[in-house]
């Protein structure tokens, strides 16, 4: 029992550390990739090819003064970053990185826990993230923040629907809500081949849910300064930043698990395959940001409700018909 607890604590520490490191270096990766796309070098000064840049940024934010506006609702203002970052982090408790490995004669599962409703847990937790944004925007008592928060919440609930509906087809085929079981159900053929429409809808919704370009209206720099976190500084700002990037990692990991066969693949070890697929998605996110201009808000809402929602329902209908036929 004691040994088991030690293993669990080590696993949590490793996953947590790896997640924070990935998120930190995601900022570096994004600046580098966008730099390359725009024929610039990106960060070069701090460390070899700017490799220490995320650490320098983090330290800088630690040393910055924490400003709480006099007009703000103090309690809610202090609580909001916590409400934003915690859901972004704990989704990783149920994501499987690999099946099992043998270390020192013990079999260790490469996931923290396999709850039998894993996918439902992730969706429930992910939808809590919007509270952090709304509370931050409202409590700042700033007009830009409030507008950003309102837009963000309307956008996130609109796209959350299609996101939830897009994976119903996957659940019908996998016959389970457990992420480990869903990965195992893809040992023959990945669900991206059986559910191409569902995958496409999921991908679009994932970009919208994480408030990334071309759906980055909540923080449209040119009109809203920075959206819901205008008034935040120091580590509180850093936490919102971390939350955004942690959400990108989460939706990428979920896309890998649901559609790309998770950790499965030939030759390379399972964890390597998992990371490879996740980083392919992350690269896609950065690529989209460098390529596409921002949507207009009415286009964004119209697209979510009038295109994605009917298409995802039709996808369920077609999947059900084909499966009932056989």
């Amino acid at each position, binding site marked *: 029992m004691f040994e088991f607890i030690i293993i669990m604590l080590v696993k949590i520490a490793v996953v947590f550390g790896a997640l924070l490191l990935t998120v930190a270096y995601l900022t570096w990766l994004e600046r580098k990739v966008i730099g390359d796309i725009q024929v610039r070098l990106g960060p070069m000064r701090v460390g070899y090819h700017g490799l220490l840049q995320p650490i320098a940024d983090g330290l800088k934010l630690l040393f910055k003064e924490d400003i709480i506006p006099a007009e703000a609702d103090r309690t809610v203002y202090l609580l909001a970053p916590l409400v934003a970052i915690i859901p972004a982090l704990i989704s990783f*408790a149920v994501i499987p990185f690999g099946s099992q490995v043998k270390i020192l004669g013990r079999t260790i599962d490469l996931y923290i826990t396999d709850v039998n409703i894993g996918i439902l847990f992730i969706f429930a937790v992910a939808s809590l993230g919007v509270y952090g944004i709304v509370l931050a925007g409202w409590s700042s008592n700033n*007009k830009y923040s409030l507008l950003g928060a309102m837009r963000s919440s309307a956008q996130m609930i609109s796209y959350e629907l299609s996101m939830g509906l897009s994976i119903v087809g996957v659940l019908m085929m996998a016959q389970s809500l457990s992420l480990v079981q869903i990965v195992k159900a893809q040992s023959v053929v990945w669900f991206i081949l059986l559910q191409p429409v569902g995958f496409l809808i999921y991908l679009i919704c994932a970009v919208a849910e994480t408030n990334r370009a071309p759906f980055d209206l909540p923080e449209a720099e040119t009109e809203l300064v920075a959206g819901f976190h205008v008034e935040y500084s120091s580590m509180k700002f850093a936490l919102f930043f971390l939350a955004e990037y942690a959400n990108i990692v989460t939706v990428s990991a979920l896309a890998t698990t649901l559609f790309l066969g998770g950790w499965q693949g030939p030759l390379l070890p399972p964890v390597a395959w998992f990371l490879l697929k996740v980083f392919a998605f992350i690269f896609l996110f950065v690529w989209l940001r460098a390529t596409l201009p921002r949507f207009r808000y009415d286009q964004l809402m119209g697209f979510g409700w009038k295109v994605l929602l009917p298409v995802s329902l039709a996808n369920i209908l077609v999947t059900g018909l084909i499966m009932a036929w056989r």
Partner: protein
Amino acid sequence: MAADYAYVGLFLLVGILFVVFTIEVLSRLLRPSRPNPEKLSTYECGERPIGGSWIQFHVRYYLYALVYIVFAVETVFLFPWAVAFHRLGFFAFIEMMIFIAILLVGLAYAWKKGALEWV
């Protein structure tokens, strides 16, 4: 079974401790604190802020929220149905399609009434 959720709880605890430690301990020890009235005033592009921002929101946000609730509940119904789809057979499929069709009438109504238009 309950143990599975205990690990989630443990992970949550680590997360909260990390956040509270960085904000309330590490950053508090390192950061300066020299507030003054100008610094603490609300940001409005350098102008003195005019009025507060705790105002009534536009009604269109509520319309989206209402339509959302209808379909969010539907999604929750769909998840267990999808998992048990293989065992339920064709009858359950027809039943669920009727259920979705009823909700689609609601969506069509909202669409026709212009609740989905952003004006």
